């Protein structure tokens, strides 16, 4: 809700209410940020680190936030950057090509320690992990969170047309992947 965000921002600018405003902000957005990260990196600990880092960045930069976009959009942009940064670092740290990182994430889904969905849900998650990073993010945002293309465009800095194309490619790949799995 924009009005609620406005209130949070106003309180954040006053020293006496800064901490309280920040707590309100965490409570409002922590779940969405966490789930965005969790769907991208699967592992709870990694998603936890990413989410905490996102809010630490919010704490240090919220005063510079110019309100050119919504607060939610701004936080989401930080969260997506953190997720991409995390995956990139992981790839660099272990000198792995990106698809190996995705294989590792798929291994986590299959092991059942991180994911307890039934067969169809597991299939969907495994298919999502085979998508390129950005397509995966676009798919998660649209499919699970029902974020509009316009909002996504602000968050990711990509045109609406490109996002639509990206989502359609993602759906086609997932359909193909799920059907392939069913044949075996």
């Amino acid at each position: 809700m924009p009005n609620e965000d406005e209130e949070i921002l106003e309180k954040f600018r006053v020293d006496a209410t800064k901490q309280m405003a920040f707590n309100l902000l965490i409570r409002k957005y922590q779940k969405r940020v966490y789930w965005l990260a969790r769907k991208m990196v699967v592992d709870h600990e990694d998603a936890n680190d990413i989410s905490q880092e996102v809010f630490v960045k919010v704490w240090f930069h919220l005063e510079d936030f110019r309100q050119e976009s919504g607060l939610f959009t701004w936080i989401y942009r930080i969260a997506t950057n953190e997720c991409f940064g995390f995956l990139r670092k992981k790839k660099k740290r272990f000198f792995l090509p990106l698809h190996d990182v995705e294989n590792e994430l798929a291994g986590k889904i299959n092991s059942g320690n991180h994911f307890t969905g039934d067969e169809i849900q597991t299939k969907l998650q495994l298919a999502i992990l085979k998508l390129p990073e950005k397509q995966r993010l676009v798919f998660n945002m649209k499919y699970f969170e029902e974020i509009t293309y316009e909002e996504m465009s602000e968050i990711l800095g990509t045109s609406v047309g490109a996002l639509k194309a990206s989502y359609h490619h993602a759906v086609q790949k997932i359909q193909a992947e799920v059907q392939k799995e069913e044949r075996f």
Partner: protein
Amino acid sequence: MENQYNFNGKKEEEYFENQFESILRKTIGLENWRLPGTSNIEANFLVPEGYWLQMEDGIRSKTLSKTSQNPHPYFNFQLAGILGSLLILMFASYFYMKNNIGVESWNVQLEKIPQEEMLAFVDFQNRDVQEYTEKLASANLNEMDLPKPSLRLNVVEIEQALEEIQQDDFTETIELN
């Protein structure tokens, strides 16, 4: 003229309308595509009990520790680290150069040059001086490339000039050192 394209036995407009509709259907189909039973997938990712409060605590302690660590809000640890390492690298390379390519090794290199070569080099350096000395001893001085006398006036000439001025001027009080 008969149309050369095949529209599957349909009229041209009808064919394109059908094509457009099928593309539209495909697009909308993809847009609203759902795999049944996957709406609440978040419930299948395990999250520890009371996690959200733990997360809040974690964020608060991180922000506090980072605030107290940072001596100035614009102080950038990463940048300071890079600058520090650059300075260390510069000093290390300076000391390495000084010890290995410094005066000592230069002296050692000089010692390695044979004495005849050194003398020949010194002679070569002095060739102009020798040539000049020989010329001075033998040839006519006027033919030599000596520096031309300065055009500046000496003290006597200045005094004479002033006396001439004094005769028809008011500069009687001028004192000469």
